[in-house]
């Protein structure tokens, strides 16, 4: 179907404006003066900025397109995203402030940095970095397909979609290179405001357009498609799947490199506590958006590609201006998270693969340059895979969460368990990954989320093996362990820092 010229112009105009703001936010040279400035904004962001940044991170184009399409095909299973993210923020309250304090005090910018210092292990940190980068690139590709689908609906007949997608991603890479985390932060505010306004507008207007209001809509769903409104009690994706998928995804959320980047920008542990309180409120809009998938189910002709459920619904319901605003919201929800994800992945690569393993003596200024330059490599790889071998990525995308959660014991449990050993943690991580891949590869998940089996095996391996190595771990200490577990040392080192 032919796109809509008004809608397309609005979309392109908004994208370009946001790219411009991305560049302007890096006017001050200081933003690229060091890795710490460029990647975590010198840790000076207050509660509200972090809220926008983490929100922008996690509520992406894929969230809106993917969940409505799941609702369209799989009914209420799509709502697993709600307990998942509500619990993720709740859980974060208990460990992020602590993690932030360690990172702040020891000038760490990635989760792999933390693991290296906590366990004195470059092996563990490179494993975490590899998992992080490997899982993040397919995730960036998902965003890419988000904007590609949007432009395809908006611009068919007017533009060459691929060329525009590549151009817009290169622009994003360029402003990320230039402005660092400041770029996505300021543009995230625009994106989040648009997301809230446009999604609420859609949630109110679409039921009115098609059914005369929310209540008549719900009556129709209850009458014609009640199977959409509950979760199956068993089967490959029933209640046990829903519960384990929510829990595992919740534990995995802040293990993603881009989420960690957002967290490390905070200026105090307390701003993270407040964020843990207020971030769940983001889901008020999300839960309503998922219902749009049900509208698509009732309204769209059978045989519509589920991937395009929301976009086709927008196209068939609105005039040019509203279409344009909706498309640009989705496009921004794809581009801005990409920028933060690219920073997260570049940081892991430069710090924990390049510096830790290839060139430990690298000068800070050169490391900063390498970190920034990696943005092009990361986004380039995502473009390459996304456009050239899209099918190779599907498995990695599906396994992303299940893979990421395997670093949870290394990052979170280690904040609280003094005698957790390096050896057991590394073996646990490998066992967890192997189990996840095996369960996924053989398809024997017994109605439970794959990552849950992996995480269970991971924990089991750590608990069983830890006593074998604990003697050595007890006698060794290091500044991070002192900071975490030795109250007195912590006070003196904090006092020294203040002086």
């Amino acid at each position: 179907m032919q796109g809509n010229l008004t809608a397309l112009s609005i979309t392109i105009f908004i994208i370009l404006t946001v790219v411009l703001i991305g560049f302007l936010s890096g006017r001050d040279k200081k933003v690229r003066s060091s890795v710490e400035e460029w990647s975590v904004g010198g840790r000076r962001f207050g509660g509200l900025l972090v809220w926008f940044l983490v929100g922008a991170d996690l509520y992406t184009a894929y969230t809106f397109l993917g969940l409505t399409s799941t609702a369209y095909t799989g009914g209420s299973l799509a709502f697993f995203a709600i307990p998942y993210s509500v619990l993720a923020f709740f859980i974060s309250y208990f460990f992020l402030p602590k993690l932030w304090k360690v990172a702040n005090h020891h000038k760490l910018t990635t989760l792999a940095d933390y693991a290296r210092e906590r366990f004195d292990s470059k092996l563990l940190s490179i494993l975490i970095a590899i998992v992080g980068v490997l899982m993040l690139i397919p995730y960036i590709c998902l965003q890419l397909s988000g904007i590609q689908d949007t432009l395809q609906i908006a611009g068919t007949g007017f533009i060459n979609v691929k060329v525009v997608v590549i151009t817009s991603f290169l622009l994003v890479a360029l402003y990320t290179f230039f402005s660092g985390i400041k770029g996505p932060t300021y543009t995230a505010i625009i994106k989040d405001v648009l997301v809230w306004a446009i999604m609420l507008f859609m949630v109110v207007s679409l039921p009115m357009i098609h059914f005369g209001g929310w209540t008549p809509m719900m009556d129709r769903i209850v009458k014609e498609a009640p199977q959409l409104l509950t979760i199956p009690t068993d089967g490959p994706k029933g209640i046990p799947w829903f519960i384990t998928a929510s829990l595992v995804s919740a534990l995995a959320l802040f293990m993603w490199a881009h989420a960690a980047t957002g967290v490390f920008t905070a200026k105090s542990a307390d701003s993270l506590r407040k964020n843990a309180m207020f971030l769940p409120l983001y889901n008020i809009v999300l839960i309503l958006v998922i219902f749009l998938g049900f509208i698509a189910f009732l309204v769209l002709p059978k045989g519509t590609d589920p991937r395009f459920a929301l976009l086709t619904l927008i196209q068939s319901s609105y005039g040019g201006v509203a279409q344009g605003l909706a498309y640009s919201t989705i496009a921004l929800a794809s581009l801005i998270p990409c920028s933060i994800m690219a920073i997260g992945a570049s940081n892991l690569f430069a710090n924990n693969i390049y510096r830790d393993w290839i060139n430990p003596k690298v000068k800070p200024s050169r490391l900063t340059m390498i970190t920034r330059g990696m943005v092009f490599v990361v986004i380039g790889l995502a473009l390459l895979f996304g456009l050239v071998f899209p099918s190779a990525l599907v498995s990695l995308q599906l396994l992303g969460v299940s893979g990421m959660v395997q670093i949870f014991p290394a990052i979170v449990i280690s904040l609280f368990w003094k005698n957790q050993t390096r050896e057991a943690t590394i073996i646990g991580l490998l066992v967890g990954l192997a189990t996840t891949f095996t369960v996924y590869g053989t398809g024997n998940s017994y109605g439970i989320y794959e990552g849950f089996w992996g995480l269970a095996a991971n924990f089991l391996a750590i608990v069983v093996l830890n006593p074998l190595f604990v003697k050595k771990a007890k006698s060794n200490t290091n500044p991070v362990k002192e900071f975490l577990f030795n109250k007195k040392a912590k006070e003196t080192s904090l006092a020294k820092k203040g002086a």
Partner: protein
Amino acid sequence: MKKGILTILVLLPFVAQLALLPFVNKIGPIIFGLPFFHFWLFLWIVLTPLCTYGIYQLQKSKGGLE
């Protein structure tokens, strides 16, 4: 006493949003235009931050937050 409240506040969001799911997985009654299952999830979007806030206040009053 305070410790008991703290434990309850920590466990409540998990129990409500995971353990109780098999019991709330139904369409009726429809409340505020949402089927009961979705109403329940919506309710906890609002109640979970209140639990977090409660925990925050309790910890603060104990002086447990630096």
